[in-house]
């Protein structure tokens, strides 16, 4: 089952990805293939099986509350396309 064009556009918007009309059909088919795989998984009887958050049968290690990181601002800002006064610059965003 292919994913319809409207859904592909919506997913693209949520993912902030531009999709051209040429790639729309291919994308629709590939997403459909993913859903086919999911459908296949859905056929497995999971009655009484607890949902799994992670494939490893282990629990998370926690770390003590200590400041271990140094200021790395200059190195990081140097990677950004634009910065000023210690701030990263981005196209204006207003809610």
């Amino acid at each position, binding site marked *: 089952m292919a994913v319809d064009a409207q859904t592909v556009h919506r997913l693209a918007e949520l993912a902030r990805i531009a999709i051209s009309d040429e790639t729309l059909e291919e994308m629709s088919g590939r997403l459909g293939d993913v859903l086919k795989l999911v459908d296949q998984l859905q056929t497995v009887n999971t009655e009484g099986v607890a949902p799994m958050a992670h494939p490893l049968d282990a629990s998370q290690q926690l770390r003590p*509350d200590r400041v271990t990181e140094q200021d790395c601002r200059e190195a990081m800002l140097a990677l950004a396309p634009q910065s000023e006064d210690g701030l990263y610059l981005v196209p204006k965003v207003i809610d």
Partner: protein
Amino acid sequence: MEWEIVIGLEVHVQLSTQSKLFSGASTRFGAAPNTQACAIDLAMPGTLPVPNEEAFRYAVMFGLAMNAEIGKRSVFERKNYFYPDLPKGYQTTQLAEPIVGAGEIEIHLEDGSSKSVRLHHAHLEEDAGKSLHDAVFSEGHGMSGIDLNRAGTPLIEIVSEPDMRSAAEAVAYLRKIHSIVTYLGISDGDMSQGSMRCDANVSVRLKGEEKLGTRTELKNINSFRFVERAIKVEAQRQIDLIEDGGRVVQETRLYDADKNETRSMRSKEVANDYRYFPCPDLLPVELTDEYVDTIRQQLPELPDAKSTRFASEYGLSAYDADQLTQERAVAEFFEAATQHCGQPKLVANWMMGELAALLNREEIAIAQSPISAEQLAGLIERIVDNTISSKIAKQVFEAMANGEGDADAVIEKRGLKQVSDTGAIEKMVDDVIANSAAQVENYRSADEAKRPKMMGYFVGQIMKASKGQANPQVINKILKEKLDALL
């Protein structure tokens, strides 16, 4: 028609850990932009988050204080959305298995009544950075500046059930949360610095109706006062809308404090779909019963327990005990001052009277009080031992507030010591009697029953002559003797 307002609150509380929820970068407030944002906070490739144990300990403390279930197993999930102050493109948060489950707390209203509010759950999550839009750049290039120092700071989001029925109840609930987190010492609770932020879900329905009305969400209200005003104005907007035949639209609205109105934040963009899923970088966090029990045993005395103790141990009224225990720093000030002077009721009166007025006027917290607990106790001691009258004490208090030193220093320097010296008072009484022939005559010719009242005039004159420093009991005694001798 009688309307009922239904309110649920989502409160974000910044936890006062040293380092971030998933990285070892500092969380200190007020650092230069981006100096506390490390590779993990910036979502650099190849980095892995490791959760901060202290954040879990704080969240468990909070859950226990809210009489809530503790999630012995909690799972972090990714909440996906794009915004420049969120470098990863998702917020690491909890959804299906939060650290704190359902709970319940008592809130206390101004009229002395109490009510129970249910907690839906509370979860741990990371804060985002800050976007700076206007007037930060000298050049008008129309860009936004991003400071990621706050990105990754641990928060607990506390979600209530829609149990509140008025703006006043919402404020009382918020104050209770504030009180609990500051008592626990897990947050500074400073709303002005954004350490505590509040979103309110507001709907209205006809009284007696069971079904909830369509709600709107008021975002980011940043003071207790605004919470009250925003809810009132939004509820009224909904009521007016429905009474005019309209329908409430479920949406996010922003409260504009200057105009005292709410307005829609609806943008043309499609509604968000956060596409939550368990974070593959983080395993489920499992806490043992022993871990939780140890924290339970270490919990400090909480506001309600302290209030009950203040009433029984110090003989305060329920109201006074409640007022003095809402803030931990206030309660500690009270106990410190009482320990010094042994006068709990006088300490309570001075704290809720003069001291509260002073702090209000100066807009400062009790921690910044210019008069320490020991200094207030020193002043009260001088009232109790009759060195000064209560009236003069107010003068001394003002002088102490202005940094003129301890009560004894002010009394000494300004010569405010109460005059109990009989000789000096006798002289003042004689002078006043000598200068008040008419009043003396009236006193003599009056009925005996009316005479005590007529003494007021003389006492007033003598107090005036002594600049308020003569001991009133001594004046009364000498005056009566002298006037009666003239009969």
